[in-house]
């Protein structure tokens, strides 16, 4: 992994100077600002059983479905289409370094964008001078758990995007593939569990383990479970490993 640092810097620099990065980021932040605003509005004049932050994290899937494919679809597919991947592979870098650098750059970008949304509660409390709302909006347990979940699940989601991009040389196909796999992971599992448990009871437990929303529910209320940590880390590693094999086989 001697060249990993160089490749990562290159990927980050490419992200930093690309206009599409800023367009996507601004759109993301506008969307999240709107969502946060709507959530605040719903909490005025009506009591809720869960905090503002928990409700906010419940819509994590919305940016995942459009940001992750947009962010990752060109990473490998574009290099392959332009023929730069083959050129790159003739240099003394390994496919593992290439995949890891692309993955880490995309993940850092994803996490940074989510990190900026942490500004919303601070803007309400300090920007408007309403320290009385600190307890309602800035519960440390919920925020640590919620943003921890976003960062952790982001490992797998971004890895899936990189994997989808390494399957094809067409960016659009890569994006659609990425979206489909993420959809199955996030929405398909609960539906599958509902139906599968009706046939076979023993399936309930493993399928429950795979439910992303169940992990979110735990984390976003401040309950950290080590099982999802293993799940996301190990599966991100597996998916990235598959992407490396794909690069090796096609290069």
């Amino acid at each position, binding site marked *: 992994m001697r060249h990993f640092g160089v490749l990562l810097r290159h990927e980050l620099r490419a992200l930093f100077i690309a*206009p599409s990065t800023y367009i996507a980021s601004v759109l993301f932040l506008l969307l999240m600002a709107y969502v946060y605003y709507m959530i605040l509005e719903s909490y005025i004049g009506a009591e809720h059983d869960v905090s503002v932050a928990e409700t906010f994290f419940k819509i994590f899937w919305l940016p995942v479905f459009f940001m992750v494919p947009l962010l990752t679809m060109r990473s490998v597919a574009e290099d392959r289409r332009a023929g730069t991947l083959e050129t790159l592979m003739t240099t003394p870098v390994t496919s593992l370094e290439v995949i890891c650098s692309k993955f880490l750059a995309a993940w850092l970008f994803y996490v940074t964008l989510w990190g900026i949304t942490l500004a919303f509660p601070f803007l309400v409390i300090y920007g408007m001078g309403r320290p009385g709302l600190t307890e309602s909006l800035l519960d440390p347990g919920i925020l640590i758990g919620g943003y921890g979940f976003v960062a952790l699940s982001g490992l797998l989601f971004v890895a899936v995007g990189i994997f989808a991009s390494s399957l094809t040389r067409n960016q659009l196909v890569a994006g659609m593939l990425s979206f489909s796999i993420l959809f199955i992971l996030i929405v398909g599992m609960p539906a599958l569990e509902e139906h599968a448990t009706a046939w076979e009871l023993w399936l309930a437990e493993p399928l429950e383990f795979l439910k992303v929303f169940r992990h979110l529910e735990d984390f976003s*209320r401040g309950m950290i479970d080590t099982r999802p940590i293993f799940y996301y880390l190990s*599966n991100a590693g597996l998916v990235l490993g598959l992407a490396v094999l794909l690069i090796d086989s096609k290069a």
Partner: protein
Amino acid sequence: MGKLDDFVCANLLKRINRVVQIVCAVTFIVGLNYVATLYYERIDLTSRHLFSLSPETLAHIEHIQEPIEIIVTIPSDSSREDEEILYRYTRDLINEYVHAARRAGERNMIRVEYIDIFKDIARAEALARDHAIDQPNLVLVRSGNRSRTIVPSEILEFERMRPVAFMGERALTSAMIEVGGAEKPDVYFLVGYGEMRIDDVSANRGLSEIAAELRARNIAVGSLELSTVDAVPEEADLLILPDPMGPLRPEDVEKIRNYLVDRAGRLIALIAPARRHGLDDLFHEWGIRVEDMIVVEGGSDYIEGSGNYLVRQFGEHPVTEVLIRNQTPVITGLSRPVRQVPGAALDGRLSVIHLLGSSPQSWAMRRYRDAETSAFNPATDLEGPVPIAAVAERKIDSRLGISYTGGRVMVFGTADLFSNRLVSSVGNHTLFFSAVNWSLDRDQLLAIPPRPIEKYRLTLSRSELLQAGMLFLIPAGVLAVIGLLVGLVRRY
């Protein structure tokens, strides 16, 4: 050229190699995740540790001897706020029990099943057949042939019809101790004077239902005829005297007295109006008087459609705690006053509390045998509210100056309160088992506080909200400016 150098063959080998790598990697990941599900930790980051089980519960889970099955009939998709809270909090709590059992190395010691009795008809029928449960919002805790049903009022605390606290952990752990406890308290129902019987299934005089439920709660139930024994059996933890038809012989009263005084015994007595019971002296020693009067109810809000009386006045005591909290009435038939001996000089070690009372519009009539008299007579009658049940507790001081419970006597001035006909009423059922649990000290097994049910609401004006909305544009705006600057720098 060797066969392995052949292009097709080498390509095939490469492919096989990749497939083997993928299979190995997938197997490793599945295995790793499986191990992770067996050995895991859950860390509660909430400031008040809202999702952590109490040390009492954890200690009990570590010592579970037999598998425990929990069946939940709370619907998961209810639109009612209280049912939605009931389901969510109960599910989260039960999950923590399952996790705790696994961490303790007892992987399958707690099994959980959720049944929607309106959707899963086959399972609902089986549940009704096997456990006589055909209603939603219940939690059945079962171990071996013992079971205990937890009702919503034991799980949620309400204030002005809204749930304010969750008491599920106390209820669930208590139920698990009841069904799985190694120690089995002995409760004797006295017989020999025409009392209500535990083997009687009739509606008015039968106690078969409470006997069955006591057994299901891991309590040994038996009948005891005092004239056939020299003393109350050593193992007796509680005596219940359910409405004797005639006065007890002095020697039998003496046996009860010795049991209460010498062995810090517990007694629950049900004395119907107009009965001569022969226990006046004994009750007097405990500061209680059972009057030979009849309570006449005057308030229409306190009379049920079938003519029974509704008791809504409760004295503050652990036995009536749940009834007061949930404002649940108790249904009784005719009753007589049971009250603290007027003017009794109770020493500091004997306390008497009135448990139940009739309405303020009621009164107690002394000359009830005189058919011509039905009006209130201030000279002889008692003004309402009239106490119709009382409890006396005696403390004993040890040589070390520590005070501990010496004996407990609870007297109800009505007989059919716990009969098969009335015990199915929520209030009567709760009252009976609270009385038994308190008498057996079962209510003191756990000191698990209720968890507050969090409610979130923001106080922002419309203009403040708009101001917040404008502020939320700042991060996107800053990023857009940076993007423009980067674009300009690159261009020029």
